[in-house]
């Protein structure tokens, strides 16, 4: 349902709070107006503008899967003014939400393919949406591999879900932490994401790679994928430009002729190579 005033957020109630990592929280949100909730639809990859009245709006993805109805989830790290205000809230509090905005991961086109998810740090949330979306359609895909790394064991988000994925026989989960970030009982890999990816020697044939992470991780991950023969059009990532409106008017996320909020946030490496490097 498109609102007539495109700046007016939905009122959402925080129904549960989960502490994921230091300064990182996940909120499960429900529409205060039930009818709005029933009409709300989105697809994996889309994002929203989350707001605390009086503090402003902040842009991040919808971290839950569109296959899970009745709520949406967001995961954020406390960094700026709005996320600091968000972090002060508890279950029962209200926030504003505008969305969904942006394009989507073309999951339907991935039928019959192997999926390789590569995420770093706080960039697992935008990928979690598409991971769960694909897991809920698991029979449509072949091999299902997730490589996830963070600076330290403590910084890994969605620990309970990592455990669930680890226990599933139809998911190959590899977790890693940066050298020095391990604990005594850490059983995962130790090393930066690109290094571990290289060690895994992923096969490119019939495989889609989805990469989300800090710019430095992405920068060193693409060459590894290229080394193993991944084609640019089979590598997906998301751009995280600063945004205000979310619908191509405020001008902030303009990269060349592209508006990240409308033409993105999901891009293939082939599309990224066509863009000027203003992201």
């Amino acid at each position, binding site marked *: 349902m498109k609102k007539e*005033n495109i700046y007016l957020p939905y009122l959402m109630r925080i129904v549960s709070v989960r502490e994921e990592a230091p300064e990182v929280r996940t909120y499960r949100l429900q529409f205060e107006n039930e009818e709005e909730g029933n009409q709300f639809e989105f697809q994996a990859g889309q994002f929203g503008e989350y707001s605390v*009245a*009086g503090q*402003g*709006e902040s842009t991040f993805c919808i971290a839950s899967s569109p296959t899970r109805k009745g709520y949406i989830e967001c995961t954020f790290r406390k960094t*700026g003014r709005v996320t600091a205000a968000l972090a002060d809230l508890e279950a029962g509090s209200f926030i504003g939400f505008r969305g969904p905005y942006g394009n989507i991961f073309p999951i339907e086109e991935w039928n019959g393919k192997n999926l390789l998810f590569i995420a770093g740090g706080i960039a697992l949330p935008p990928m979690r949406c598409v991971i769960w979306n694909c897991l809920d359609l698991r029979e449509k895909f072949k091999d299902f591999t997730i490589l996830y790394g963070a600076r330290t064991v403590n910084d890994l988000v969605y620990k309970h879900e990592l455990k669930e994925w680890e226990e599933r026989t139809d998911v190959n989960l590899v977790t890693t932490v940066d050298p020095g970030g391990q604990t005594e009982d850490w059983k995962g890999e130790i090393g930066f994401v690109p290094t571990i990816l290289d060690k895994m020697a992923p096969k490119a044939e019939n495989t889609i790679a989805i990469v989300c992470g800090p710019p430095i991780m992405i920068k060193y991950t693409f060459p590894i994928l290229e080394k193993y023969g991944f084609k640019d059009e089979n590598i997906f990532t998301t751009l995280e430009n*600063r945004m205000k409106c979310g619908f191509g008017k405020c001008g902030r996320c303009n990269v*060349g*002729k592209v508006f990240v909020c409308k033409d993105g946030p999901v891009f293939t490496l082939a599309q990224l190579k066509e863009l000027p490097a*203003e992201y």
Partner: protein
Amino acid sequence: MKLLKKEALPKLFEKINSADKVIYAPVENHGQLVYRRVSAYDEVKKDYIQTVQSAKYVVFPKIEKLLDYQNSKDGTSLSEAVIDELPEIVLFGVRPCDAAGFDVLKAVFTWDFNDKFYIERAKKLTIIGLSCSKCDNECFCTSVGLNPGSTKGSDILLTKNNEGDYLAEIVTDKGQAMVSLCTDLFSDHKDDNKENYLTKVPVKFEKDAAIEKSTKSFENEQIWFDQAMRCLGCGACTYVCPTCSCFDIQDEGTSAKGIRYRCWDSCGLSQFTIHTSGHNPREEQSQRWRQRILHKYSYQPERLQVLGCVGCGRCSRSCPVDMNIAEHVETIAEIEL
């Protein structure tokens, strides 16, 4: 074509006022020429080339309230700003370049997502344009597909003849509705050519060449660096521009109640694109200058089918370090590819 006698103008203003419409026109305000609300024709500046600021604020105010919020122990309420009770506005004496600028704003604010605030304001706006009999060195409308007598964007276009009376072209239905308020003031007029009364604005560059060459010059770091070397990053150019429409959204108030508003912003300011992490996709002023030029001359023509510059010359007149957009675009249009 109609004729509006100079003696009829005060009556036209009276008619508009009595129809419960509000008139904005160029007035001298403490030494600066600006658009302001007027009640009678004698307040209007008669002889001028261009106002310091454009009239875009009539449809895109510097600050626009989007919603009110209230937080209490019972919860939060968000109520949308009321925009339906705006008065009908007649904008008088708008230069053809500025009138065309409204088309660019329309393209931005109705692209896919309809911006209610813009649409409601534009719906209630009638534009009476005024052709130019004078220009200055900063004017370059003829380089961007317009001319001193373009009707584009105007509902009625007036052109002053040698007697000081006005040839009136009724361009749109809104213009016709305006004439219907006072048909007796407009007489039929034939065998005249407005071209006789227009100034000549020299063509400084070829529009199509500017679009093509700027599009292909993104990676020509040197030219953007050279042009932006003295740019202060003050944002004055975007502030006075009739087509610049980038904005910010902010909240203001207490934790109990307040408003969310949008306000003009500028791609020329260093904080425009900065991420929370500190990473800035446009780290250098030359990149921000390039963004302003390419947004207007490359991205908007491609994405919205409008050229985002109307050649009014305001940015050049306002620039504290004398950067002249027409000269810079001319340089780009003449690049050998």
